[in-house]
């Protein structure tokens, strides 16, 4: 899974730069708000659309640039993330867990927006969307134009992906 050459040319962002922004934003959110220090791995070569026992948080953006930033993680890791964020035990999929993962997506969206937007008014962020389940798929209409970075935290893998397009 890599950034399409035409998209990279139109956005003026290379895959390496976008990967760097995603890694930096994710590590900032996790170290500051979740008290975890995730380690990034090489960007994925193949798309991941099917998830098992996982939760996905997504924030869309529209304007000069449009796209989606998403975080996908196993429910067991999401419970630890939520517990750390709230300072109280979370051991089930509930509103707290959904809200926490949505808020992480929101903070990641804010960081990406800061990179993409000149002053903040030309790119609008959506309200977060959260999906969870034992077996589900997430498909993008522009899957080939994504950058997806795997991270390891607490011995478990999670993914942060960015789909990006520059609007004419």
């Amino acid at each position, binding site marked *: 899974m890599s950034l399409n050459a035409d998209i990279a040319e139109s956005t003026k962002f290379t895959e390496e730069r976008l990967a760097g922004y995603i890694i930096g934003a994710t590590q900032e959110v996790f170290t500051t708000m979740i008290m975890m220090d995730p380690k990034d791995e090489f960007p994925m070569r193949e798309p991941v659309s099917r998830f098992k026992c996982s939760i996905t948080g997504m924030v869309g953006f529209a304007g000069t640039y449009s796209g989606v930033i998403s975080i996908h993680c196993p429910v067991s890791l999401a419970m630890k993330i*939520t517990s750390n964020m*709230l*300072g109280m035990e979370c051991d089930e999929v509930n509103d707290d867990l959904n809200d926490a993962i949505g808020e992480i997506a*929101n903070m990641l969206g*804010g960081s990406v*927006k800061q990179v993409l937007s000149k002053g903040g008014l030309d790119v609008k*962020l959506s309200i977060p969307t959260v999906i969870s389940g034992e077996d589900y798929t997430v498909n993008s209409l522009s899957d080939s134009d994504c950058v997806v970075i795997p991270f390891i935290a607490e011995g478990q893998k999670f993914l942060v992906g960015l789909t990006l397009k520059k609007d004419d």
Partner: protein
Amino acid sequence: MANILIVDDSSTMRKIISRSLRQAGLTVDEIFEAGDGIEGLGVIASGKSIQLILSDINMPNMDGLEFVKAVRANGNSTPIVMITTEGGEEIIAEAMSSGASDSIKKPFTPDQLQEKLGGLL
């Protein structure tokens, strides 16, 4: 001791802000919560004594910019600090020109809250 109103559509973020205010050693008495600007205006209209308002920008129903404008349009001069993922200069400038007192970017640490809010409490 100050009463604080937190306006944010994320219940997680409201809890984190509440905890961070206490961790930062700020003199907080009662904390009121609202899930969007409309709820925030409702809390203010209920007549509760509030010395500081912390508001997100990107919220459903009524966003933080509309909320700030509505509070000021009602003649309320309570300090409002935007706590938001929105770090762009233009959007922060719009918030400030609408009547916000300051802004804090998410993610934040308790120390950053203390630094920004210490002088307001």
